[in-house]
């Protein structure tokens, strides 16, 4: 249901049959917990002239959970998505860091480990598909930074978020192991985009420190500690809110903020929003459509003055 809706939104009016720029792999989270990330990504990129077409009948990439459970399967599952992308003949866009790292892992295999690679190819053969070398996989953050460019963003901004102090939090799996970003530990692409929409980016040394990810399920105590440190630095640096680009980070920092406060006796009230929500809002898209209301810690009061 949500698929049809967003697809329409992604298509610029009158563009009709024009070939999209990317096949979009949303991943499971963007269809459930992170719908606001999905909608704000697709809509902002449409405004910026990038058309995404959702990969038809995509399946779960397996995330890091499958890499731990079954090695071959952890390559075969994402490989199906890459094979279908190759069939479509377009590069792939991914917004979720976890999917990004998992899909890229298959790409790396396609370039290196030959015997294991043929094993993966055999599994694809069993379902009548094939993967012919690596597929171009791009993170939407990088597409916005690189393909759209800061100048274009500045041109299109309708509401400059002047005075809004944002801590840019990239999470770990976007730039690591080495992908297309400027540095595996201190990338700057999101910083630049946020500055281009007028926001004030605060110093945030922990920008790629891990939030614990899925370990929140199995090792909750220590993962809460990690998130407390992330919130603490953002607060000390004077951030109004934290911008993220990964559903897992958003969930851990936002949904568990209450738990962290009661556990550590703190009083954090830091909204955790996707950078695309801020981008779309700055581009003039409707505040509601950007899904700010879906966060546990409300972001509304920081945005009111720009609306």
């Amino acid at each position, binding site marked *: 249901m949500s698929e049809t809706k967003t697809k329409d939104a992604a298509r610029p009016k009158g563009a009709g049959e024009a070939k999209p720029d990317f096949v979009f792999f949303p991943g499971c989270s963007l269809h459930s917990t992170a719908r606001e990330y999905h909608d704000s990504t697709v809509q902002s990129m449409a405004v910026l002239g990038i058309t995404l077409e959702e990969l038809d009948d995509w399946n779960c990439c397996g995330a890091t959970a499958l890499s731990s459970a079954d090695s071959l399967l952890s390559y075969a599952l994402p490989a199906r998505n890459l094979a279908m992308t190759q069939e479509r003949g377009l590069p792939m866009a991914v917004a979720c860091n976890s999917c990004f790292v998992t899909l890229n892992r298959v790409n790396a295999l396609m370039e290196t480990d030959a015997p294991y690679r043929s094993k993966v190819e055999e599994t694809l053969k069993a379902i009548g598909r094939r993967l012919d070398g690596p597929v171009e996989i791009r993170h939407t953050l990088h597409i916005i930074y690189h393909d759209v460019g800061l100048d274009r963003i500045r041109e299109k901004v309708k509401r400059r978020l002047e005075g809004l102090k944002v801590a840019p939090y990239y999470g770990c799996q976007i730039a690591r192991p080495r992908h297309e970003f400027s*540095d595996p*530990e*201190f990338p700057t692409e999101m910083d630049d985009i946020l500055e281009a929409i007028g926001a004030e980016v605060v110093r945030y*040394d922990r920008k790629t420190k891990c939030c614990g990810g899925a370990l929140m399920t199995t090792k909750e105590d220590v993962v809460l500690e990690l998130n407390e440190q992330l919130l*603490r*630095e953002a607060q*000390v*640096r004077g951030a109004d809110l934290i911008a993220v680009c990964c559903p897992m980070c958003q969930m851990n920092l936002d949904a568990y903020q209450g738990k962290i406060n009661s556990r550590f006796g703190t009083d954090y009230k830091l909204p955790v929003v996707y950078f695309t929500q801020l981008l779309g809002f700055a581009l003039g898209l409707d505040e509601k459509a950007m899904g700010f209301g879906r966060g546990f810690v409300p972001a509304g009061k920081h945005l009111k003055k720009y609306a």
Partner: protein
Amino acid sequence: MPGPKIGVYVCHCGSNIAGKVDMDALREFAAELPDVVVSRDYKYMCSDPGQDLIKADIKEKGLERVVVASCSPRMHEPTFKRACQDAGLNPYLMEMANIREQCSWVTEDGEAATQKAKALVHSAVNKARHLEPLEDKTVPVDPKTLIVGGGIAGIEAALKIAEAGKEVYLVEREPSIGGNMAKLDKTFPTLDCAACILTPKMVSVAQHPNITLLTYSEVEKVEGYIGNFEVTIRKRARSIDEKLCNGCGTCQEKCPIKVPNEFEEGLGMRKAIYTPFPQAVPNKPVIDRENCTYYKTGKCKICERVCPPKAIRFDQEDEIITEKFGAIIVATGYQLFDPSVGPQWGYGRYDNVIHGLQFERLSNASGPTGGKILLKDGSEPEAVAILHCVGSRDTNYAEYCSRICCMTSVKFAHLVREKTNAKVYDLYMDMRTFGKQYEEFYNRVVAERDIYFIRGKGAEVMQDPETGKLLVRVEDTLLGVFREIPVDMVILNAAICPRPDAQEVAQKFGIQRSADGFFLEYHLKLEPMKTANDGVFIAGTCQSPKDIPDTVGQGAGAAAEALKVVFAGQVTVTPTTAEVRDTLCSGCRICIPLCPYNAITFDEAKGVAQVNEALCKGCGTCAASCPSGALRAKHFDNRQLYAQIEGVCAE
């Protein structure tokens, strides 16, 4: 028609070859080849008895060609050539088959290695059959030596050569000689101050009648060959008259422009007219035209007004010097690894994270803090961490060990304790204290109060956002625990790296670089100063990371190499040049623009091309391109190479 009598000599090289290749089979195989009249094997063919075998056969059996199957010709070609010559055989009638470096050492299977050795011997015998006698030629040598780079390696080499009575040009890019050593404070393991031991040598360089010192200068072009290099040097305009300037320093006092001093590694300032440090040689300033107000706006000229001897020359121009040299020593030094490449170390992000050379300047009495170890805010640190292997022994950056950092770290630990009351944490992976008196020095420092050695690589420097303290993260690997150490200052002992323009310099001097980017020596162990370009030698850290004792040693070694060339007075040049066979030349002139040395001209009268053998280096490009086959590369002609191809393919 019977061919020339050929003798084949198979070397075991101990077990280096014999351990893999079947010596008996190879010897017998060679004996069966056409024209081979004798085939022998011996344990060490390069030894005197081995050579005697060859000499005896030449004399007694009347050998006309000799084939030695052994190591690479790069090792022993001269040895066997000489042996032939001693026995009265023209040395160019000897051919080698490389069955060690290119066969026994690189082949897993013994049978395959034997088969390959046969092919290589067959190839060499085939070539030998077609060899022809050639006569070496000699040319006179220019008695001067050019040394590029005025660090301790170049200084040492210059003094040795000058003291031996030969003339030297020392070219240095910076306004003063001294190099990186001049920046150091104390030197391990004896802790004498760098300036105290270096300055006298610098002064000697300036005063020695045999040394022409060209600072603020760069080599632009190198042409020619051993004994006869023609070098173009650009002496950049200092904007002062060096003869008039008395080094009083008034200009520097009065100049209103302040910029960061490169010599102080960004920690101190200099003026637009400056000498980089007080003990500079020559002690005459330069005007940095990029920052000088006069060159930017046409106004100011304060220095000119205050200069007592009126030595300022704003209109001075660069000077181009062309000079002939017999030998060249390249001693261009190193560049410290830029730790900001790895943002995890916090360099460039946190004020009090500094690298090794910056610490040297802090600790140096003539440095920006007058020798006090201070934080950026002027206070004294309470805790200092020293990290080894920043960029070294790390496949993400430089895979090699930089060799000096362990000792430098131990020295830093001692200096911090000597000058402050700070606790010192030294984070090391391995403590490599390999030199004379190094381990003893380490043993002394390790016992000092409040110096803690932790075995683990410093992974990361963070900052506590609330207190501003630096946090160094490391695993204490001997305890197996993660440690986060709060400190006020972090010293990163960064890797010794090739200079960023190493490739350009290598090309200029016709030398090569090894995989690590440093200049490539001819032989890692036995020819560390020679390069692939005869007459060009290397010394110091441009060849590999090394400490002062090793650098001085190599500088002196390179001086000996250069002296060997200039004292000989003449050098042998290869007779393996190209020649034109007039009867075949059609006069098409295709070869003329192909020659990199402009050695081919056209004889209008005869209507044929002509090779100037003094210029020809024997690369053979012309021979490969001659449509009529008139151009012949001596010692590598078509018939010889075809025979080799037949040989390697036959087995």
